[in-house]
């Protein structure tokens, strides 16, 4: 296990290095002199030169990159132009909000997607299967920001059941926090549920026709036990790994969901940073998200290793 993970970790190193080069190169895409963005209205050549010195923009590109990456490795992702706060501090402040949204969305995705996938596979070719597939495909085709708007219109404006926006930390008021996050996490969770349903269905279909399932039935076991214990347990491996891999979709989905429901999380931070031309924050978020995704990939590999006894034997 240790060797397996070390090998995976070593493979991740060049990827992270390339990501850092890519993120660093992003600021070079800026049209014109990036200093003019930093300086704002100030165009005094002396001030510009001071800023150039401060941000070491006179250094060769390779030196600039090395300085940036060394700082990033020490947790220093730069300073936000808008708030003057360290980017890493801003990210750490917003992360728990997005993590709560992600966790609650995942609960929706799992509780809708997995049972629907099992049912659809078990009743392959039936009306239930057809309906489940249509619903899943519709879930994949609905833009989640539109679903959010429609839910606000119905649930908050018309029926006044749940708050339309805002965020209450879990530590402040547990019940109210769940209430404010219910609609956003449903919106984000349904899109993932569709992906989850399709993968669960496909995994279940391949195991339901396996010999050991036929043997279990031949032994006279109850159908529920055959499906849930024998088939589902073996179909679980790809589902668990998929759960970890859906991290990217969760973060991307959170950008729009947080924008619609005015949730002060990671996603809203990136959008605000984009509009305030706070490029250090944008770079920091891309870097942290990408590294987070690689970490989730490693986690998926580890879970695959733990859940698959054949891999452990190798």
């Amino acid at each position, binding site marked *: 296990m240790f060797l397996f993970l070390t090998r995976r970790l070593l493979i991740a190193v060049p990827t992270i290095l*390339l990501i850092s080069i890519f993120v660093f190169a*992003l600021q070079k895409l800026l049209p014109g002199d990036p200093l003019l963005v930093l300086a704002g209205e100030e165009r005094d050549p002396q001030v510009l030169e001071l800023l150039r010195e401060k941000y070491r923009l006179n250094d060769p590109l390779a030196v600039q990159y090395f300085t940036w990456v060394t700082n990033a490795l020490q947790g220093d992702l730069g300073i936000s132009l808008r708030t003057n706060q360290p980017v890493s501090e801003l990210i750490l402040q917003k992360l728990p909000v997005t993590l709560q949204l992600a966790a609650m969305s995942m609960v929706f995705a799992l509780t809708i997607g997995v049972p629907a996938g099992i049912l659809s596979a078990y009743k392959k070719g039936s009306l239930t299967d057809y309906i489940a597939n249509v619903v899943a495909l*519709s879930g994949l085709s609905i*833009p989640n920001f539109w679903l959010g708007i429609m839910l606000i219109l119905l649930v908050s404006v018309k029926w006044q059941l749940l708050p339309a926006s805002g965020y209450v930390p879990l530590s402040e008021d547990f019940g109210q926090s769940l209430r404010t996050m219910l609609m956003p996490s449903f919106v984000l969770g349904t899109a993932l549920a569709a992906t989850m349903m399709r993968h669960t269905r496909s995994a279940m279909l391949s195991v339901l026709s396996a010999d050991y399932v036929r043997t279990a039935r031949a032994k006279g076991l109850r159908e529920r036990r055959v499906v849930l214990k024998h088939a589902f347990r073996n179909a679980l491996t790809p589902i668990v790994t998929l759960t970890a891999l859906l991290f990217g979709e969760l*973060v991307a989905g959170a950008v729009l969901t947080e924008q*619609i429901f005015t949730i002060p999380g990671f996603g809203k931070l990136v959008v605000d940073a*984009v*509009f305030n031309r706070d490029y250090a924050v944008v770079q920091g978020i*891309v870097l942290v998200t990408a590294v987070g*995704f690689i970490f989730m990939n490693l986690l998926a590999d580890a879970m695959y290793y733990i859940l698959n006894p054949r891999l452990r034997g190798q």
Partner: protein
Amino acid sequence: MTDASPTPVAAVKDRLGRAENRVWKKFRTHRSALFGGVLVSFFVLIALLAPVLPIPDPAATDWGAVRKAPSAAHWMGTDEIGRDVMTRLIWGAQASLLAGVVSVGIALCMGVPLGILAGYFGGWTDAIISRCTEALLAAPFLILAIALAAFLGPSLTNAMIAIGISATPIFIRLTRGQVLNVRSEDYVDSARAIGLPTARILRRYILPNVLPPILVQATLTIATAIIAEASLSFLGLGQQAPEPSWGSMLNTAKNFLNQAPWMALWPGISIFLVVLGFNLLGDGLRDALDPREH
């Protein structure tokens, strides 16, 4: 004495022809794919015919008809400055479809050649291209597109470039995998053995054989790209006012949910239907091209 059996070339052509027929026949009987095709054709048609349809100017304001509910005069109602929602929806179809097709075009133009190079040559070429692909894949699609659009500046063109670049790694990885399957086939070995130049082998023998799954992925990616464009326009990073786009229409509509819900209803339904159309079409193509389904 005459030999009635066909020549080897004719036999291969005949077999390929039959395979094509089988794919087409399978696709034609795929009802949901046909439905997807109808949906996509409908939106393509209205987008193309927008300049000649008897509809008002999409930017024409009417201060006497601000936020009017759907009626005989305005079938889908009007927006916050009295513009006809249906007209803007029809013109908005151009932006969405253009974004979908152009960004996938960009992704194909960059991804397929790089994937072929990685898969065919292997070694260092493969290692470098694959590591870069993994690095790009590590950043979530929309986050990458937002970051690129932010750095390039907000406009429909830049949004298309950003979405195209973000989608490129998907095609590099897919093409590379397909080329790895094909490059050791007998017909590629034979082409190499008779001394054909590499460029010709890649163009004549590799590319046509890796295209079907790429075509399926391209269709499905158009759907993703349309949602991504709508998302970027919704955030203000895509099509800029007063040009219509479904995403920017939704962005405005969210401020008038109580007073004019129809402003949010129609653009969302349009995005849903066109994306559903491409998804159904892609699924149908995949089923028709999958040899296990025959």
